[in-house]
């Protein structure tokens, strides 16, 4: 599934942060903490739902101010890997408020933006500090991962409507 050409479709950032791994893990996995810092400057996160377990879903709402006035954006995803204080992997797609995935091209994102991307957060203690490695990678639309993700969403939608 991995090939050399995919390396171009990822952004990787490495930082050493002056905080222990446990605290960094907390601000990524506790919705209240996450909402306090995530998003661009000037944005707020009025809602963050995070079912932090493998296969659990996440839904983030972001209020962004644009030159055309305030705008609300939703992002849905699924947790893929959870190793506490060490490795967090989740998918991310633009969505509506119900978590139904939206094609980025339909909301004016530049062409070539994958519908589903994957965010990986890897933490490693360096004394009292932490080395954070962030990777944001695109999942090709026809990959087994993307198909599994679509199926999971369908299951979730069925589950939700069955409960109504």
């Amino acid at each position, binding site marked *: 599934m991995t090939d050399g050409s995919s390396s*171009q*479709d*990822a*952004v990787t*950032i490495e*930082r050493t*942060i*002056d*905080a222990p791994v446990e*605290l*960094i893990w907390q*601000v990524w996995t506790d919705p209240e*903490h996450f909402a*306090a*810092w*995530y*998003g*661009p*400057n000037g944005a707020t996160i009025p809602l963050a739902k995070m079912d932090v377990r493998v296969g659990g879903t996440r839904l983030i709402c972001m209020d962004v101010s644009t030159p055309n006035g305030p705008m609300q954006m939703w992002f849905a995803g699924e947790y893929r890997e959870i190793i506490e204080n060490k490795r967090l992997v989740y998918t991310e797609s633009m969505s509506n408020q119900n978590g139904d995935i939206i094609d980025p091209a339909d909301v004016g*994102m*530049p062409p*070539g*933006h*994958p519908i589903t991307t994957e965010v990986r957060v890897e933490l490693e203690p360096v004394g009292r500090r932490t080395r*954070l490695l*962030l990777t*944001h*990678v*695109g999942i090709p639309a026809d990959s087994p991962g993307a198909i599994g993700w679509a199926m999971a969403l369908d299951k979730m939608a069925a589950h939700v409507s069955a409960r109504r």
Partner: protein
Amino acid sequence: MNELAAPFELTLPAISKHIKTLERAGLVTRGHLAQYRPCALDAAPLAEVATWAEQYRPVWETRLDRMDDYLAKLKSTRTEAHDD
């Protein structure tokens, strides 16, 4: 150089300066052919900054800056709490 300058309303020294900049950025390579210095364009590095992922780099840099600020705030709050 004359050929490259022809389509533009720029002086030869100005064109030369622009080519040197592109050469330093690794986007243009220059060869030797008698008294000519033929230029070749290598646009591959431009494709890298044009991918969706590279457009996210500044977004993540800002997010991580904000995370850093928030962690600092958390730590100072905790320290104050301990001092009480």
